[in-house]
């Protein structure tokens, strides 16, 4: 296998070390047993949906997002652990998406991974020496003595010294931070050039996190590593990363240099994430204006921009639809007394048909005037909700009204200032920056 010498700093070449183009990873939905039992229909989850990302040698790129944003899947796709449905991942001239399983296995010595839960990432039946050395063994190093020398070196690099104390230990005898160091040693022992770190510190104690982060910085310095740092924690990403990609529901919604993203967040989702970080300094508490709701079901993403249902700055063309109407009506009812709710519920009638995404839907069971009156009440109560802009017209229809929404636009990633943003607020013609 043609390979560069192990554990030498990579040359600071100009070309990208990994180039991801239009990557899509889709999963057929098997569903949980509960879902199957209740007959929920299976669909496809677009875990990663058209992502472009280039990694320059020696840089740290952060993938930040909530669960379900596809950040972990993207990271796993870089190792070929999640098969690409479409697109390409080019690493040193080879497209990972088309390699055979065998070649892919060989390639993994160059791209390695660190996992979130160090306790789960180590085989409980293997000692530290076996676990770390196994990475060499699977790549054909037969001699146990040779392996031992390398294992000792790797353990010393991750700061597990005196090494003799650890070689014979089982994972259950180690603390969380020590286990994460063992995982790190296993990852660096094959001399990789890229390390994908999937939330490496989020399961650790506050007092240890900084230590592991420092270790990762040291390793990068010593071994010339390139990092993909996957996290939901913007604070650590700010400290650790050179570039940050904010992900939401399988897409990158904003990507750019760390300083620019934090100094001047553009995408409403980025702004929301920044606002959500609790600050330990009681003097610096900011008023919160949090987006409502949660990450939507990836099997049935919102129409238009995926973030629009939670977005405070949404425009009329962000993709408003029937499900948003349900959210609006339900939010209204959380502010009513049970009696008022009962009466209004009768006016509205069936609300379950809203769940089928459509840009035009009916509302009402007691005639059009009652339905219009109800919608007016909702509007008076929440006049600032951006959904009102998204309603194109309301016409009488049968026992109620038909609400028509504007056709939505699914924004593509476009350059805006020093970063790239996928949001209609930042059109291509933007002169900003």
């Amino acid at each position: 296998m043609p390979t560069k010498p192990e554990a030498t700093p990579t040359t600071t070449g100009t070309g990208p070390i990994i180039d991801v183009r239009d990557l899509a990873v889709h999963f057929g939905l098997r569903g949980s047993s509960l879902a199957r039992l209740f007959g929920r229909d299976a669909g496809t989850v677009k875990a990663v949906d058209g992502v472009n990302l280039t990694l320059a040698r020696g840089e740290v790129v952060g993938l930040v997002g909530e669960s379900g944003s596809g950040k972990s899947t993207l990271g796993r796709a870089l190792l070929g652990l999640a098969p690409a449905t479409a697109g390409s991942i080019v690493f040193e001239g080879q497209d990972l998406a088309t390699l055979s399983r065998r070649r892919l296995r060989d390639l993994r010595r160059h791209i390695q991974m660190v996992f979130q839960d160090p306790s789960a990432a180590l085989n409980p039946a293997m000692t530290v020496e076996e676990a770390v050395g196994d990475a060499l063994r699977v790549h054909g190093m037969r001699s146990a003595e040779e392996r031992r020398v390398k294992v000792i070196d790797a353990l010393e690099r991750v700061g597990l010294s005196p090494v003799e104390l650890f070689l014979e230990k089982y994972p259950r005898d180690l603390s969380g931070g020590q286990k994460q160091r063992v995982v790190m040693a296993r990852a660096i022992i094959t001399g990789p050039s890229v390390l994908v770190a999937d939330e490496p510190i989020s399961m650790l104690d506050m007092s240890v996190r900084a230590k592991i982060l420092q270790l990762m910085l040291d390793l990068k310095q010593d071994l010339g590593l390139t990092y993909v740092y996957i996290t939901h924690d913007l604070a650590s990403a700010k400290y650790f990363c050179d570039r940050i990609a904010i992900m939401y529901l399988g897409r990158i919604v904003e990507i750019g240099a760390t300083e620019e993203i934090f100094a001047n967040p553009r995408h409403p989702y980025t702004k929301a994430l920044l606002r959500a970080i609790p600050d330990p300094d009681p003097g610096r508490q900011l008023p919160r204006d949090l987006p409502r709701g949660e990450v939507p079901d990836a099997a049935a993403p919102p129409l238009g921009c995926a973030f629009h249902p939670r977005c405070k700055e949404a425009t009329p063309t962000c993709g408003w639809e029937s499900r948003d109407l349900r959210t609006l009506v339900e939010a209204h009812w959380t502010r009513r007394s049970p009696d008022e709710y009962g009466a209004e519920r009768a006016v509205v009638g069936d609300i379950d048909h809203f769940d089928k995404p459509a840009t035009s839907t009916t509302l009402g069971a007691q005639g059009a005037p009652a339905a219009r009156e109800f919608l007016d009440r909702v509007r008076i109560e929440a006049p600032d909700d951006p959904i009102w802009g998204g309603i194109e017209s309301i016409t009488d229809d049968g026992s109620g009204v038909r609400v028509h929404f504007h056709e939505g636009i699914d924004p593509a990633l476009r350059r805006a200032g020093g970063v790239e943003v996928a949001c209609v607020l930042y059109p291509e013609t933007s002169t900003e920056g």
Partner: protein
Amino acid sequence: MRKVFKALAKPFTETAGLARWMLVIGIVITAVFVICAIFAPLLAPYGFDQTSADGVQFVKREAPSGDHVFGTDRLLFDVLSRTIWGARTAIEVVVLSIVICVFVGVPMGLISGYYGGWLDRILLLIMDALFAFPSFLLAIVFAFLLTNKLPSGGFSGVLAVSLSLSVIYVPQYYRVVRNTTVSAKEATYVEAARAIGASDFVIMRRYLFGNVVQSVPVIGTLNAADAILTLAGLGFLGLGIQSTEAAEWGHDLNRALADAGSGIWWTGLYPGLAIVLLVTGLTLVGEGLNETINPTLRRRRLLPVVMTPREGDR
């Protein structure tokens, strides 16, 4: 070496009270039978098919006496000798069938659980069918089919019976290993193994095997008890091992049946007692192991807390 001792001592250090006693008693009983099996030529006064000693033929159905402590049966065999030799047959059959089961069931379960898909479905179906079939009937059928089919020799009867017993018990090993594999393969450490470039074979052998075989010893010992009974049942029906081939308790019981009516108790009592004791011993070992190995059954040993009196300055 210390690791091995530690592992062996684990069942004792991690049990308490009843569970520990069960285990100890079970091991003692089983050990007695194993010793009988290994040293049968030394322990038994006569051979299992010996009908005369020093040129003098034994008396038929002689009551227990100085020469024949347990008496003789109607084929002139010495009952004590046959009971001791019977232990050898029983242990041979049980060990052999467990070995076959482990060698067939564990890899099959691993592969089936790891790969899943149609292979898993087909294997599952076959194993479930075998499992659902009345086990004793199955053993009879296989004993029928296998007897005299195997290359003849002193061991062929034992091998035939062991194979018939394996057919009954393989589904249990398969099931347990397959189910634990299905859940274990989702663990992060398996994905981590894949991330370092391990092949499927390596993952199964070095990452899954050690974590899924932990319940096999328990099934093994529990099945051993059941196997003794099935073996005796087959022998009682005259299938499998013949009297001249080896001493077998079930077969001896069959012959003792006719004696029981005429007040000859010793031909039936001792083989019967041996079966009961060995089955009890193995069951106790199995249950004891289960308590220690199976985490859902294990109760943590709780020690009373003695709070020290408070220090004055705190």
